[in-house]
């Protein structure tokens, strides 16, 4: 098996791992981490498609590569929004979890109007 297929299988496994972490981790910050794992795994699968399209003297098809660059930037934007939402939730409610039954996690919650 050549390098591209090997990395493709790695990407598939990473996507599965990331999805598992997203479902089973209860802290939102860990869910965001697992979401990034899922993202990089999916991009590696794109990379395999690009590598298989090597032609015309290039190492890979440039169109999927450009799509992945766009995807990495968009994934970062989504992560930043998620992190800021989580921090705002923590400031407002004093706990960093989405579970409504969870007891209060840490210090005083701010009262914002």
């Amino acid at each position, binding site marked *: 098996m050549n390098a591209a297929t*090997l990395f493709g299988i790695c990407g598939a496994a990473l996507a599965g791992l990331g999805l598992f972490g997203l479902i089973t981790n209860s802290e939102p*910050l860990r869910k965001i981490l697992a979401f990034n794992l899922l993202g990089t795994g999916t991009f590696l699968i794109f990379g395999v498609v690009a590598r298989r399209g090597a032609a015309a003297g290039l*190492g890979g098809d440039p169109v999927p590569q450009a799509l992945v660059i766009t995807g990495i930037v968009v994934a970062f*934007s989504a*992560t930043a929004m998620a992190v800021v939402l989580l921090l*705002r939730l923590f400031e407002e409610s004093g706990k960093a*979890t989405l579970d409504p039954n969870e007891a209060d996690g840490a210090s005083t919650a701010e009262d914002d109007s």
Partner: protein
Amino acid sequence: MSMANAFDVALVALLLAIAVWVVVARAAFSAIVVFIAYGLLVAIAWVRLFAVDVALTEAAIGSGLTGMLLLGAAARLRGTTASGRCGLTLRIVAAMFCAMISLGLGAVILTPPDVVVTLAPAAMANLPPSGLGNPVAGVLFVYRAFDTLLEKVVLLLALLGVWSLTPDRLWGGVPGPQVDAGPDGMLAFLAQLLPPLGIVVAVYMTWTGADHPGGAFQGGTVLAAMWIVVIIAGLQNAPSIDQRLVRFLVVVGPAIFLGIGLAGFALADGFLSYPAGYAKPLIIVVEVALTLSIGVTLGLVALGTPQRMRRQ
């Protein structure tokens, strides 16, 4: 098995082991540090896949900026009690579901199509009129320029989203905590030595992106990183979010890109098409403006919502 194959197998094994570590680690801090190392290893995997532009972007944004963002969040969320771990049945069902998805994706990878559809010849054939030498830059700025414009708008929207979560009483304030690092501390030394070199590297990466791997996004990220180093060392204050200069710099990139795109209606074939012979200068103008905008936008997104008012 050749040397290259042995290296690939070792890299893949390391990647999977580190990914498992990220998912099962107890403390958020260690999980995030391992995630940063994971991002750098994925960048090496991208080089092995002959996609050097993507490797640069992954190392800069995917590993560096994301890791910094998550570390800051973990520091602020330190001390919150972890919710109870979810039950065993949910973990088993989730594991089976994720294994099915992985197997499905793996099956798709292992059955390549007989005829490989590739756009590489078309991309290379149409590259000379634009004056570019890097086909990925050609895709980003000539063939799929619409995607790049919208990607920049997505960054802008993320910044607006981050700013919109400001509490009302802190509107117009300064993001980031107050830094009391002394002017002769270690971080101050780094913040005086590194940014000049980093700016040269960023300009070089943007400039050489026309012919070699590089580009506006990679250079802009290094600019953002230098700015953040200066701010967290306490040598400069983060700008308050109502400063006109900051808002102008954030908008100038997409505005120039959009303007050149709309001018394509009058001067060339349509939206975002360049007039013949002027493609390279226009692309350079767009790339420079985008680098500046991306640097400022990424820095502001990484700094987060305002935490305090500017001292009057």
